[in-house]
C-alpha cells in the first residue's frame, strides 16, 4: 500500500512539471550554478561525438546491418540527454 499523502505529492509534482513544460502560469524558476561535476558529465558526450569518432571509425562490428560508426553516433545522440539530465541533477540551486 502506498500512503495517500505520497500519491497526492506525486500528482502535484507531475502537474507542476507539465504546467512548466507547457509555459503555463507557473513562475520562472531561479537559476542554477553548474559545478565541476556538471561540466565533467556534459563533457563525456561532448568528446564522444567529436574526438571519439576517430576511434569509432569502423564498419565492423555490424549491428542490425548498420555500420559501427553510425551505431556509435546514434548511441551517443540518445545518451546525450541522459548525461545532461545527470549534470542538471548534480547542480544546486
Amino acid at each position: 500500500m502506498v500512503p495517500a499523502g505520497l500519491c497526492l505529492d506525486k500528482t502535484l509534482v507531475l502537474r507542476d512539471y507539465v504546467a512548466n513544460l507547457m509555459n503555463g502560469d507557473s513562475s520562472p524558476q531561479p537559476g542554477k550554478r553548474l559545478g565541476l561535476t556538471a561540466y565533467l558529465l556534459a563533457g563525456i558526450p561532448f568528446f564522444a561525438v567529436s574526438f571519439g569518432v576517430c576511434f569509432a571509425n569502423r564498419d565492423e562490428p555490424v549491428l542490425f546491418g548498420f555500420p559501427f560508426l553510425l551505431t556509435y553516433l546514434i548511441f551517443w545522440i540518445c545518451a546525450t540527454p541522459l548525461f545532461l539530465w545527470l549534470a542538471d541533477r548534480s547542480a544546486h540551486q
Partner: protein
Amino acid sequence: VSSFVAFSIVGAILLGSMAFGFLAVGKVKMSPQELVIGNRSFGTILLSLLFAGETITSFTFLGAAGWAYSRGAPAFYILAYLPLGLIVLFLFGPLLWRRAREFNFLTNADYFASIYESRLLGLLVAICGVFFLVLYLTVQLTGIQILLEIAGYGSVKGISAGAIAFFLIVIFVFFNGLRGVAWVSVIKDVLVLSAVLFAGVVIPIHFFGSPLHLFERLREAHPDWLTLRSGTMPNGTVWFVSTVLVNGVGIITWPHAVAAIYSAKDEASIRRNAMLLPFYQVILVLVLFAGFSALLLTPGLKGDEADQSFMRVVQTHYSAWVVGVIAGAGCLAALVPGSSMVLAAGSLIAKNIVGTFSQSFAQKHQTTLTRISVLLVAMCAFVSWAAARSTLVSMLLVAANGAAQFLPGILLSFSDRRPSALSIGSGLMVSLLFLCWTAAVKLPLISGINVGLVALVLNFAMVGLITLTNQFGQRLRRSGRELADR
C-alpha cells in the same frame, strides 16, 4: 496535372501554416521585445519548437541526403554536431540568458556592446552578423528553389515561385514576430517528421525490403562508403572532428540562435530544451537512409544535382500528392529558420547599426524600424541570390565558419577577468580576414583541419596576445611611475 496537384498542396501547406501562426499568436501587443525575442516568455515546449525549427533547416533536409549520396560517411557530421551544440547550449545558454535579462539585451550585438563597454564592437558584431545571415538566407532560398522546381515537374521556374514563397513569410514575420515563427514550427515539425519517415523508412522498404538490405546492397556497390577516410585526408577523421566542433558552437553564436536563447522564460527551460532535442534530431538518420537509397536507385547525379537526389526518386516513383507534401514540408523547413534569420538581421540593423548613429531615433521608432529592416534584409538576400549565385556559394563557407568566430567574445565574457573590447574585436577581424583569404584561394582544409577551426584558434590567440601586451604595458607604466616617485 501532376505539377498542378503538387503545387496546390505546397501552396495549401504554406498558407495553412501561416493562418495557424496568425491564429496562435492572436492579439499580442507588438513591442520590439515581443517582435524579436517573444518577450522572454517561451517555456520548454515553445522553445524546443523554435530550436527544432532553427536547427533542422532545408539544408539538413536536402543537404544531408545530398551528402550521403555524394560523399557517404562524411554526411554523419550532421548527426554529430547537433548534440554537441546542445551540450554547449546546456552549459552556456543559461549564463548568456541571465545577462541578457539583467541588462535587457535584444540582440547578440547588444551583448558585446554592453559587456565589453564598446558600442564600436557592437557595431562590428552587428555588421558581421547581418552579412552572415544574408548569406545563410540564400542557402534557404536555393533549397526552396530546388523543392519548387521538383514540385513543378519541370514546368515552373523556381526563382519566381521562390520569390512568392519567400515574401509570403516575410509578411508573416512582419506582423507576428518570433512567437509566430515558434508556432508555425509546430506544423513544420509534424510535416518534416512525416516526410522524413516516408523518405527514410518507406522508400528503403519499398525498394530493398528493409533498411538492413539497403546497407547490404550499399556495401556491395560502395565498400568504403560507410566509414571516414583516415587522418588528414579530405573529408577524413580530422576534418570530421574539426567540422563538428565549428558547427556545434554555432548554436550559441549565430545571431538568430542567440535571439532564441533570449526568448526563454527561465534558465530551466533552456536546459530542458537541450535535454529534449537530441531525441528529435535522431530522426535525421532517416534522411541519410533516403540519400543512400537514392544513390542505389538513381546513380550518377553530379555536383549540385546530388542535393535533389532523394526528391528525384520521390518524383519518379510516387504520385504527385506525395511530392507536394514532401516539397511543402521542405519549404517550411527553409522558411521557418529563414524567418528567424530575417528577424535577427532586422533587429541588428534597427537596434545596433542605426542605433549607433542616432540612438534617440532608433529607440523612438524601434518596432517600425525593425520591421522595415526585415523587409530590407529579405530584399537584399533575394536580389543578391538572384544576381550572383555562383559568387555566393564560395562566400558561404565564410559565413558558416564566420559565425563561430563570435565564440571567444561570448565564452570569455563569463570569466572573471574579461578581456578588453579591443582584443575581442581584433581577434574577430583577424579570423574573418583569414577566412576571406581561404575562400579567395579556395582552401577549405589546412592539413586536414577545417579552416573554421584554424580561424577560431587564431582568434583566441589574437585575444590572448593583445590582452598580454596590454597587461605588460600597464606593468611597465606602473613600474615607470614608481621609479619616478622615488
